[in-house]
């Protein structure tokens, strides 16, 4: 199954360090659940046995930004909260990614009013936007898979200036 079939009885494979690291990174994305409002409940559903995010290696939700790879911003971000979100993002070690989960986070959603940031891309570099209010768990899993495709393409030189 899987890797054994690729090896075909040989006990070694040849590859590049870059590819192995990218493969390891994409297979163990540790999310930081930035659960600000109702989307966070949907993120909990993603982790439960029915949807089971651990199938994609991203089940280890870290509540400390220093141990996380991807921040899932799930909820309405107000201008007051934006400072907290950015500060937590700054504490995450590089390389790091951001998923904007739900309509509020991506664009302000139905909260078209003065205290709500109309999209977190105004202060965070967002990699994946997830549609929905709130998004269904499958939709977030899809976002994780899309992010994995993105992480797979990363190479060490992409982060050299960040170290």
């Amino acid at each position, binding site marked *: 199954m899987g890797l054994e079939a690729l090896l075909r009885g040989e006990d070694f494979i040849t590859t590049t360090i870059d590819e192995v690291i990218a493969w390891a990174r994409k297979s163990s994305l540790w999310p930081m659940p930035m659960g600000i409002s109702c989307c966070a409940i949907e993120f909990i559903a993603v982790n439960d046995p029915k949807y089971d995010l651990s199938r994609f290696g991203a089940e280890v939700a870290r509540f400390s930004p220093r141990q996380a790879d991807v921040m899932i911003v799930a909820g309405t971000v107000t*201008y*007051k909260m934006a400072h907290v*979100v*950015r500060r937590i993002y*700054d504490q995450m070690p590089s390389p790091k990614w951001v998923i904007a989960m739900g309509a509020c986070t991506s664009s302000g959603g139905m909260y078209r009013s*003065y*205290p709500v*940031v109309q999209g977190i891309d*105004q202060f965070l570099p967002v990699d994946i936007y997830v549609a929905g209010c709130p998004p269904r768990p499958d939709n977030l899993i899809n976002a994780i898979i899309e992010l994995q495709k993105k992480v797979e393409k990363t190479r060490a030189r992409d982060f050299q200036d960040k170290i």
Partner: protein
Amino acid sequence: METKLTNQIVLNKIKQKFPSAILSTEEFQGDFILYVDTNQIHELLKFLKEDSELCFEQSTDITAVDWATRKNRFSMVYQLLSYKNNYRLRVMCYVDGSLHHPTVSDIWPGANWQEREVYDMYGIIFDNHPDLRRMYLPEYFEKYPLRKDYPLMGNPGDFKLPTIIED
């Protein structure tokens, strides 16, 4: 057997103590509303709480109304509840043109935060309030967003986004 508290009993009791305080009354969808003279609002609310029969122990909500075009622009709204009588009462009064209004946080300690919210949203200044700071909005914010002349999307530059430090 105690008599059930009715609107008329409440009105008579207040009129006995404060003959000139009540400007008008209204009954709307089962709610009894008193419109009260601003100069006597503090004593009247104190009486409503401390009277042994009325006993309005809880100020359920304190808020304000911006009438925008009226001469007295703001109204204060006190929503009171008497546990003892299972009776709710709404007291309203105009806010003085100077936007200064007596605090009721000495009567109901819970009114402290409710009045902070009103200050935050409408800019009404409560005299003798122990801790009149903004409640929800950032401390650098200068406007009062629930006023009718504040635009829905705010003014550009009212709020600050985080400063991004490139590493």
